[in-house]
């Protein structure tokens, strides 16, 4: 059964996602360590956790866009970086 090159590329994407996920947990561990004994640590940890989770989810966008660009696959990119919004701001 044929295994195209894209399978290996997707395997690399999956491994990178996994590494980022482990980085998220390491980040959470660091956050827990740094906020030990700090007042309002539950709130700080909650906010920090959400930020770290957001970063992990954002990494999916980055992986998607970098991979699509390398492969030459046309997809809509983040609206934040869209030309349309930049043009509207300029106008």
């Amino acid at each position: 059964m044929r295994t195209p090159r894209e399978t290996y590329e997707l395997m690399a994407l999956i491994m990178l996602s996994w590494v980022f996920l482990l980085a998220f947990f390491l980040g959470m561990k660091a956050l827990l360590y740094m906020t030990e004994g700090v007042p309002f640590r539950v709130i700080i940890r909650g906010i920090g956790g959400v930020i770290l989770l957001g970063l992990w989810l954002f990494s999916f966008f980055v992986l998607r866009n970098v991979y699509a660009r390398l492969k030459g696959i046309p997809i809509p990119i983040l609206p934040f970086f869209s030309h349309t919004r930049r043009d509207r701001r300029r106008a």
Partner: protein
Amino acid sequence: MLAFLITYISTLGLEELLKKKGLTVPDVHKRGRPMVPMPGGPAIMLGLIVLLFGSYLFVRDVRIIGMLILTLSGFLIGFYDDLKRLGGRQKVLLLLIPGLLLVVSGLYNPRPILPFIGSTRLTIIYPILLIIASTIMANGVNMIDVFNGLVSSAMAIATLPLLVAFWIKGDMTMFLLALGYITVLAAFYLRHRYPSKIFPGDSGSIAIGLAYMGLIVEGSVEVLGIVALLPMILNGFFIISTLGGFIEHEDIKERPTKVLEEGFIVANRSPGAPLTLTRLLVWGGPLQERAIVYNIIILFALSALLSTVTFFIGEII
């Protein structure tokens, strides 16, 4: 074993019944688009009910009831969708219900074990995550139900790291449930594999997805489950981010792939086509359906391996 037999026999019976009732759909990835009976979900659900009830009678573990609540409620929503066809957004919102029911029942443990961190206490955030996870799991698994035999084989492979974890932790109840889950999938796979004699439908894929969620939540192996399902998560993310939201299969204007005369599948090069794992796999050249399934299974196998590694990282550190 009983769950395997019940699932297999009821799948055979359901195939005949669905054909008689004219409940068939075209197999769009084949030349001639042959009609295939759908949904096979009731047979899968019957196997899962036999598994869960049977197990509960022996071990009386309330976690099994939690799994049942999650799976059955999701199956009923999926079955309604199979018959009446819900919109994409409606389905996403309705599939919050299984998670909500699990939270209301209180049959969960808000102390997940996280790699590098160990046991945590997330009494506020965990129930919220459960509700959101319910729709993500159900819809995510539904999104990978696109080829013959894929969802049943992929989810069986994704369960293997859970078996390892349950065995090493000594959680024999969850080990046997996970094994039983694999046997139900295996029984259905015998009719779902290429060329499919029956499709699971939304009821089937949602039941499969939420039963898996039940295993990882009740077995406290949430992170292992997430890692094992990374291909599904990536696929779901690609689709939602390129379509700009939750859209039902039938409402997607541009298909991600096209089927050639000879049965080969090629990527749709149009910028409006959604990004999917399949479209990425065939971007470099056409593949037949079986080869696509084989390559996606390789991705799930890698994720299962990474999930096992994650478990051992958690044990060591």
